[in-house]
């Protein structure tokens, strides 16, 4: 336990003027320190693979097919109910694909639970942060707006696998 010391003001402090000079000298030192203001939007936000921006859907290597099989796990995991999926069957090598995959960006809170839940590496948080439009409807992103080639998200995917590499010493069930 440490009892905080209540300071009694000395004569100099009660006179106040010398104190103003002392405090101003402390303040004026800030002039010579490096500036910390970022001139956004001229200076962009620094983003890297750690940044959890808006979620995006990955495409397979052929850059046409979505990796998503519309299992609905991200829909269930989403705490903001931002994701809507309608699945359908296809005759491609992946038997299921989303007919409709919408993320309401106005609801999305960028928590990353969808990315964690996805069992097919189909959804990842990109480093795209800026979000503005003129209508609400335009901010409900569909597949066309969400899909990204895998290469664009590769850094995030690698980072995610790195931090997700846990239970190394475990008796794995696999």
């Amino acid at each position, binding site marked *: 336990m440490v009892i*905080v010391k209540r300071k009694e003001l000395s004569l100099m402090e009660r006179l106040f003027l010398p104190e103003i000079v002392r405090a101003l000298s402390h303040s004026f030192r800030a002039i010579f320190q490096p500036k910390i203001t970022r001139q956004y939007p001229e200076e962009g936000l620094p983003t890297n693979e750690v940044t959890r921006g808006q979620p995006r859907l990955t495409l397979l290597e052929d850059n046409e097919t979505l990796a998503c099989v519309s299992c609905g796990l991200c829909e269930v995991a989403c705490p903001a109910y931002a994701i809507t999926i309608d699945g359908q069957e296809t005759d491609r090598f992946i038997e299921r694909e989303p007919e409709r995959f919408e993320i309401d960006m106005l609801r999305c809170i960028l928590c990353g639970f969808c990315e964690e839940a996805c069992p097919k590496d189909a959804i990842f948080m990109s480093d795209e942060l800026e979000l503005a439009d003129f209508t609400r409807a335009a901010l409900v992103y569909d597949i066309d707006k969400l899909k990204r080639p895998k290469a664009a998200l590769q850094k995030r995917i690698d980072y995610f696998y790195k931090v997700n590499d846990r239970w190394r010493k475990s008796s794995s069930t696999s």
Partner: protein
Amino acid sequence: MSPQTFEYRPSTPEEIESDDPVHGELMHLSMGPQHPATHGVLRILIDLDGETMHNVEPEVGYLHRGKEKTCESLGWAKFFPHTDRLDYVQPLMNNIGYALALEKLAGIVVPERGQIVRVLLMEVSRIAAHLIYLGTTAIDLGAVSMFFNCFKEREKIYSILDAYTGHRMNNTYVRIGGVFADVDEGVEGMLREFLEGFPAAVDGFETMLTGNRIWYDRNRDVGIITPDDARAWALTGPNLRGAGIAHDLRKAEPYSGYEDYDFEVAVGTVGDCYDRYLVRVEEMRQSTRIAMQALDRLRETRGGEVLTEDRRYVLPPKEKVMTSMEELIFQFKIVTDLRLPKGEAYQGIESSKGELGFFVVSDGSSMPVRCHIRAPGLYNVQAIPLLANRRLFSDMVAIIGSLDFVMGEVDR
């Protein structure tokens, strides 16, 4: 125990009329809900007799979002982002409080390194929250440069959290059974650099405020609360310690391994706004100490796990989900239907505002029956009439600032 005698009593007609030129004509003043000094949407109804306040009555509920009820329909794991938004100046602290309650309910043991990371995050969050207190209270009392000084330091913390979690606020990086990711060496270095420079910054704050006559006159002997009153009104945290009671949950009921850390509990003597300020400044120093110790331990436990291995509650690693059918089944089970055992648990943690408690009740299904949040801010708001009645109106700003509450948590 004898019944508590409250200092608070409504003003008597004699007191109201004593020096009032217009007999009995009180001015009804509604301070807030959009007043900048109320730190959020708090409305305070005041009857003013000249400059003297009577019948002070705080009115809460303007930021009520039904968080507790939301939890009941959302499920255990999905409530984590909502806890971020309770006391939004220290999201990780709320995450950890909620996670600790769930872990107590389910009997989950967090790995050692996970606990160390949590302690580190909690102490850094505490510093950030106290910086907000200091900056906003100072600007309310007229010290504009203090606001910028505090927010400059806080900005450093947020940059570090950004580098660690990917978000500046509302981090959501704590999971049942630990934390989502390990603190890597880069973040560790940033934290060490910040913490080494921080005591000097605190000295700078003290240069500006502690001996400052304006700060001194406006805080000293304003809003005095006696130890008995503080206890009776269920104040916790720096407000209680400022009144002279050395109660700190980190010492009284240690969690997350706080018993292994070397730190002191800061205690005031008088219980006025000035004491509460001094206690918080000292707590920032102590938090720096704890965080430094946690950093040293992180170095010792490098390579350890931060998430417990328990397939009932924790998502398996992605690598295994992609390769093993068994793990894929666990992935589906946990995401869609995370069940906690039947029972109830309460866990309180020492947040920057006081005892932040989560009381969770489970009937064994995937939806909570009840999740009560004991928000320290609500109790701090309750004490406003006690501290402000029959005082001058200009003291109100100092009292509100020194009680330090965040309305997101009060109204929840």
